[in-house]
């Protein structure tokens, strides 16, 4: 036990004497969280638009007023000819052009049919989509207010978004980010620290010593369990204080599941380090083979349900997917253990599989 402690102390020296390690451990999580939280938001405010009003009557003025007072749009320019439309898009300031046909109100009152054209700048498709939707919402609102007295039957939907009533993007990113960062720290850092010993030649010395291989591995991994756990806490606290992401369910359960996920990622890191003996390859493997799938295939940003079937299969073998499901379930819905038992089992299964493979690899290498 004393030998083991000496080992852990040495490992902490390595970590605390290398400012780059410290930066990765504590700088990156905080910065990532703030970046993701502030930058990625699905709401757009103050988009610049141009209006080409060929009628200039009461109706078009009212609609324009509504559009510009909604908070989503700012008037960049009033256009006077169709030629100008392409021109303003090319200049790049304007995201959307709203065109009213001639005799708007007259047509509307007479035939009940007036023409509005919405042109979006789809070089950024998401933004264009969202802006067009806003305008359509405003138009149908206007129409509704005109007809309010006339229509005998109405269906008025009352929408309520459960678990994230304000539809905050950050609610989605905090769980995803936790999975990504814990994966990064645990798998990358352990695989690096083990391959470093191999490169230095110190691993041979350790293997010649009376320390058992298991002690060596646990000794190397233990500090990272501790640090990754600390990181999980930092992310939860930052998410809660800065962005108001709640922890509705049990904090203890959340921490327990995080610990399980950390162990899974660590055992993956160990597996990587048994495959390679160079730090560079370990880094490549961790970053390319782990980070990208974690971001793309875990449901972190893109919904798994929309992917091609083959990719969905890949998603099912991505451990982070299950962790993200688990923490969303605990943090946002407040579910208890019985709801996430299946996912927990899968994470535990992955952990055991990776440890089994590492031990097997390790023995083969010795022989």
């Amino acid at each position, binding site marked *: 036990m004393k030998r083991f402690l000496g*080992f852990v102390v040495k490992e902490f020296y390595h970590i605390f004497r290398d400012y780059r390690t410290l930066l990765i451990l504590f700088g990156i999580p905080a910065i990532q969280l703030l970046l993701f939280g502030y930058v990625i938001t699905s709401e757009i405010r103050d988009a610049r638009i141009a209006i080409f009003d060929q009628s200039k009557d009461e109706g078009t003025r009212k609609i324009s007023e509504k559009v510009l007072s909604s908070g989503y749009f700012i008037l960049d320019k009033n256009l006077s000819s169709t030629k100008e439309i392409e021109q303003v898009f090319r200049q790049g300031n304007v995201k959307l052009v709203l065109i009213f046909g001639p005799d708007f109100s007259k047509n509307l009152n007479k035939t009940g049919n007036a023409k509005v054209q919405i042109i979006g700048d789809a070089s950024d498709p998401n933004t264009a989509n969202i802006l067009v939707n806003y305008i359509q919402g405003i138009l149908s609102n206007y129409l509704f207010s005109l007809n309010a007295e006339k229509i005998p039957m109405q269906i008025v939907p009352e929408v309520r978004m459960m678990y994230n009533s304000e539809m905050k993007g950050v609610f989605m990113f905090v769980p995803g980010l936790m999975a990504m960062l814990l994966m990064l720290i645990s798998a990358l850092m352990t695989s690096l620290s083990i391959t470093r010993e191999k490169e230095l030649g110190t691993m041979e*010395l350790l293997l*010649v010593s*009376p320390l058992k291989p298991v002690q060596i591995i646990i000794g190397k991994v233990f500090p990272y369990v501790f640090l990754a756990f600390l990181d999980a806490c930092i992310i939860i606290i930052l998410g809660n204080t800065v962005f108001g992401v709640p922890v509705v369910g049990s904090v203890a359960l959340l921490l327990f599941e995080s610990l399980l996920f950390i162990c899974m990622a660590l055992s993956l890191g160990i597996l990587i380090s048994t495959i390679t003996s160079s730090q560079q390859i370990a880094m490549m493997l961790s970053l390319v083979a782990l980070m990208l799938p974690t971001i793309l295939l875990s449901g972190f940003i893109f919904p798994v349900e929309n992917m091609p079937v083959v990719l969905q299969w890949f998603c099912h073998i991505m451990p982070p997917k299950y962790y993200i499901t688990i923490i969303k379930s605990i943090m946002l819905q407040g579910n208890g253990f019985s709801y996430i038992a299946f996912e927990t089992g899968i994470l535990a299964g992955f952990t055991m599989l990776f440890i089994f493979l590492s031990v097997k690899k390790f023995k083969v290498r010795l022989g």
Partner: protein
Amino acid sequence: MVKRQAENIIVVKDLVKKFGSFIANDHLSFEVKKGEIFGFLGANGAGKTTAIKILCGLSSPTSGKLTVGGFDIYTEREKIKKNIGYMSQKFSLYDDLTVFENIRFYAGIYGLRKKEIEERTKVLMEKLDMKEARDKLIRSIPLGWKQKLAFSVAIIHNPKIVFLDEPTGGVDPLTRRQFWDMIFEASREGITVFVTTHYMDEAEYCDRVSIMVDGKIAALDTPENLKQQYLAASMNDVFLKLARAKVN
């Protein structure tokens, strides 16, 4: 210096190590006597490192009977580990730890107590004339010091045998000579030294040498006897004659 009557501390019989179809060690048989400096010579790729790794327990033999320090290499590996020291050509110290922290760490994993570690460090620092470097990072001390320190650390737990795998690689001749003085001292204190090298001048310092060519032991005797047998002026000539004999 050869202790003819001394007991055998390493016994190797018919050691074979294959990597796929490549035979790295082809039926090696030799004994190392207690307290001697045993040189294990050969060109690069002759199978020296493979053999030393098997003796240290870093690799398993394909077949053969081996005992180290009287313990069987298959069944008593843990006991062997407590009784041997090992130093590779990479010196294997941690760059980002200080001299003392390295000593404390390695002594610690061999189970030395805190007080023992303090005492031995003090003695060592005086012996190596490194007192002022005690709390410096390994990164900042010269290569020669690193090498001496690596050797001292390899024998800090007073092992019966120390295995040195090309310990003088990349070091200048003067430092190499000083390093051999340390090996002689360890040998005088009763530690058996098993050393691989491809510097033939170093072979002259050994009590007995074995010369490996292509996975086999081509010759094994004292440097004096070998030079007589092959009518050579130096160990270098002995080696060249053996290597050429192989080619012809």
